[in-house]
């Protein structure tokens, strides 16, 4: 009898998931990464820390988020869809799960400040939120292009007491914001924690962020059990860096559920990328013939990242999870459909998962299948953009 492998366990000591992951950072940052690894391992074993983390997400973050049966969409598609409602979490997405964990860890490490990168601003707002709540200083690095496109999110962070630094290097977008945050971290690693926004970066970040996000999957599995739904046939989530997907997958990695990550067609690191090293990790990346990193492009800022978390690269390699793609046009249609049928305007990111379901219900996802759909965030941040797109203004 062959033993079934265990999926989504911890990485090896060097932070590897198979051949992916690791720690590719300047020596100046290695001690901090090692310290963080120790600190996280220690904290995550400490019932007091875990319960403070859970309690903060409960009292402040609005957890548990509900599971909503999407009756009208289910009927429309001929499959049974349950949505995990991360859109109802404080600040409007799953990002809060991670930042609360890291902010608490920052205090535990005796640091007084966090820095973060942000693309559209979701992770920046979430980080500024957790920092405000816990009394930490906060600086957010944001591509200059994004600070203009997302001026309101800049203001939101400022309201929350954070300093937003426009990044003028490279393409002036998310990946450059990560570079700049890493550069800045070198200079202040003593008293500052870098609160990375997805399951990416050098070890222990991909693992740690997955652990902080796994509350999504743990809750969902229990909620589905309590409802008598049991293990769904499919667990579907959008994938930018991959934190919401990793979080929900974690609850089902060792079940019979098929795991599906939906990338933006223009940011599909699994679909179109190749192995490479960026931002401290070995993973799948969009890159040109010379190994220069290419810019991702998607209507959804949160999926506009040329890489993917290393654990996803590993799950793809193992075949435990599949990674598929959705293009901008079907994503808009999916956002409209969910809004109209269910009264939930999803984030453009989350609409990717809906779009894929719409495309394959009855084929790859057989009629009658049970699906857990991770609704990673709410669409309020996106309505202005969707409006101009539908009006042909952009």
């Amino acid at each position: 009898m062959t033993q079934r492998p265990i999926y989504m366990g911890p990485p090896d000591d060097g932070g590897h998931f198979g051949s992916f992951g690791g720690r590719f950072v300047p020596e100046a940052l290695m001690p901090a990464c090692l310290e963080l690894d120790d600190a996280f391992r220690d904290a995550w074993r400490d019932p007091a820390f875990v319960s403070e983390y859970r309690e903060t997400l409960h009292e402040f973050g609005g957890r548990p988020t509900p599971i909503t049966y999407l009756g009208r969409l289910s009927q429309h598609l001929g499959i049974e869809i349950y949505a995990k409602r991360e859109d109802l979490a404080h600040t409007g997405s799953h990002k809060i799960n991670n930042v609360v964990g890291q902010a608490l860890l920052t205090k535990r490490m005796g640091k007084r400040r966090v820095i973060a990168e942000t693309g559209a601003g979701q992770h920046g707002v979430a980080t500024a939120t957790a920092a405000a709540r816990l009394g930490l200083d906060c600086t957010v690095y944001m591509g200059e292009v994004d600070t203009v496109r997302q001026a309101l999110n800049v203001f939101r962070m400022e309201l929350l007491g954070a300093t937003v630094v426009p990044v003028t290097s490279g393409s002036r977008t998310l990946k450059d914001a990560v570079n700049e945050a890493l550069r800045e971290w070198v200079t202040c690693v003593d008293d500052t924690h870098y609160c990375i926004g997805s399951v990416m970066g050098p070890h222990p970040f991909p693992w740690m962020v997955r652990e902080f996000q796994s509350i999504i999957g743990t809750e969902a599995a229990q909620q589905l059990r309590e409802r008598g739904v049991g293990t769904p046939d499919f667990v579907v989530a959008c994938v930018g860096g991959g934190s919401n997907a990793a979080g929900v997958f974690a609850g089902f990695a060792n079940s019979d559920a098929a795991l599906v990550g939906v990338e933006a067609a223009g940011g599909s690191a699994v679909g179109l990328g190749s192995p490479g090293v960026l931002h401290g990790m070995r993973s799948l990346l969009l890159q040109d013939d010379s190994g220069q990193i290419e810019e991702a492009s998607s209507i959804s800022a949160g999926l506009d990242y040329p890489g993917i978390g290393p654990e996803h690269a590993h799950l793809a390699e193992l075949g435990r999870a599949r990674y598929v793609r959705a293009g901008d046009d079907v994503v808009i249609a999916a956002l409209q459909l969910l809004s109209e049928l269910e009264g939930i305007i999803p984030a453009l990111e989350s609409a990717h998962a809906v779009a894929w379901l719409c495309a394959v219900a009855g084929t790859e996802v057989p009629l009658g299948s049970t699906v857990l759909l991770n609704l990673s965030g709410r669409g309020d941040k996106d309505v202005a953009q969707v409006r101009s797109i539908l009006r042909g203004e952009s």
Partner: protein
Amino acid sequence: MTSLDRRLRELRGSRRALVPYFVGGLTKDWSQYVHGAILAGADAVEVGVPFSDPMMDGPVIQEGALRALRAGATLESICHEVASSAFDAPIVIMTYYNVLHHFGLARAAELLATSGISGVIVPDLALEESDAWRDVATPLDVATVLMVAPSTPLARVRRIGAASQGFVYAAARMAVTGRASDVGDAERVVSAIRSTTDLATYVGIGITTPEQARDAAQFSDGVIVGSAIVQQILNGADTTAIEAQIASFRRALD
């Protein structure tokens, strides 16, 4: 022990080393700058192979890399230029790991070796992840220079010192490349390195003026000067001007 180790050990007996940094492919005639630098007294030259996401570099070298990339610079084009230039001093490539990784580690080591390149500095290739690369580079006599930072604990300095080849790069401060006004924590970093290895130890990160170079030379085996030079080239300085700049560093060191 690589050829670079031997060469720099020898040098140690005679003078403090001056290692200027140039961005490969930044200008059409970039190799002329390297020639000039060697004429003006450089003991070895760092040649940067540009990467889109240079996380250890400040604005000056970022800008240099961006321009070089736009001009079409690649690992291959730069190596070919080095190969055909037959420089009179050891050339050490400075690049990010993805450039080598994407080219293929064995293929990259081969290319460097056949181009006459003595070593590499890969700032994002941490000691723990460097085996795969060193396994292919060392047999081809391509040295892998490792870095020690002010934050590196002593036990770790020891391991880095033991693994580094050619020299040990002593980061003068907790910062990315750029200009600064002093030698920062360099003395402490160098003394930690020296307590663990007898490899040559060069100070870099922020060395901007001949005075700083002289200060650093008091306690180290040499200096690496990057942004201060690249800034001049970005400003339009010609080879003569750069030679003059190098010469002034040379004088400060001697």
